[in-house]
């Protein structure tokens, strides 16, 4: 739905940038998390219908006090952003995918992202399993259900799933899928696995 002044006045935004059928849409979100350089942005970019966007969190959010800003001119935002994409599921549901590295110190950002999320997809590099511990801890701490997407970067030997489950200390029913984050179908399949799992958890 497009109304108001013509889009020509906002050259950077086109009608497809807006949420189709926004007036009747229910927005939901899923987190795409994982350690540094594991493929989060690539994953989101491969299935998002919009150019992935990012936002910064302000220091004031963390401090919960806007007045503090008066004293810290020129240093008002953190350097770490979250990035996100969007997928219109139907004329009733629009899905947002939020990605962030697992930095615990940006507590406010994590709370914003985790609050009300359907669940999380945890991207894992099988060659750097230990780097995933902190992120998995955080997801569990926020009480989110999750699935593991193993990103087998080119040339990596494929590690046995049982060994990976043991190393990551996963519950028996936690789904583990392999995924090439650069590939739309592969990313979509990982997301589908997660949502099937979330559905099984409530059904």
């Amino acid at each position: 739905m497009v109304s108001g002044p013509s889009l020509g006045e906002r050259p950077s935004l086109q009608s497809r940038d807006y949420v189709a059928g926004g007036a009747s849409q229910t927005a939901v979100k899923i987190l795409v998390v994982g350690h540094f350089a594991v493929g989060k942005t690539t994953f989101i970019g491969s299935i998002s219908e919009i150019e992935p966007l990012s936002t910064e969190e302000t220091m004031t959010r963390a401090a919960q006090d806007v007045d503090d800003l008066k004293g810290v001119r020129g240093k008002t935002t953190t350097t770490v952003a979250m990035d996100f994409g969007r997928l219109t599921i139907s004329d009733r549901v629009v899905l947002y995918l939020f990605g962030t590295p697992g930095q615990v110190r940006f507590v406010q950002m994590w709370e914003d992202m985790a609050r009300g999320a359907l669940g999380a997809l945890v991207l894992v590099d099988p060659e750097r399993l230990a780097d995933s511990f902190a992120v998995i801890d955080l997801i569990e701490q926020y009480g989110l259900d999750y699935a593991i997407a193993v990103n087998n970067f080119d040339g990596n030997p494929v590690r046995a799933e049982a060994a990976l489950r043991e190393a990551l200390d996963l519950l028996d029913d936690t789904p583990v899928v392999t995924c090439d984050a650069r590939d739309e179908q592969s990313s979509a399949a990982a997301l589908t696995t997660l949502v099937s799992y979330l559905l099984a958890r409530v059904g």
Partner: protein
Amino acid sequence: MNGPGDFELEATELVRPYVITKGRGLPDDDQLSLITLVTAAPEQVQRPLRLSPEEQRLLDLCSAGYLSVAEIAGHTRLPLGVVRIMLAGLTEAGYLITRPPVARARLADKELLEEVLSGLRAKFG
């Protein structure tokens, strides 16, 4: 509604968030969550308000359809906390309509998850 002389000339890119938000407090988290959908109000039901250039910019951005709070922050490149405060003010004054996402209680809703699942399957085969 703003005449050219209404606000002082400032390098808007460098305006500090405190100035942009006029010192307003932080809005309720659930009302303006990352995925709350926002659009401009259709009628002129607004309480007259002196809009800052940044507020006018937000309003313009929101006038052509719905965007999530996160998308508004992403497109404007303003920090999320700042965008939230401005959106809260504009909503309170009747310029914007917000559609908060489903309540936490409904999130585990089977129907909602089924809809997401079948939508994903339909889209990606």
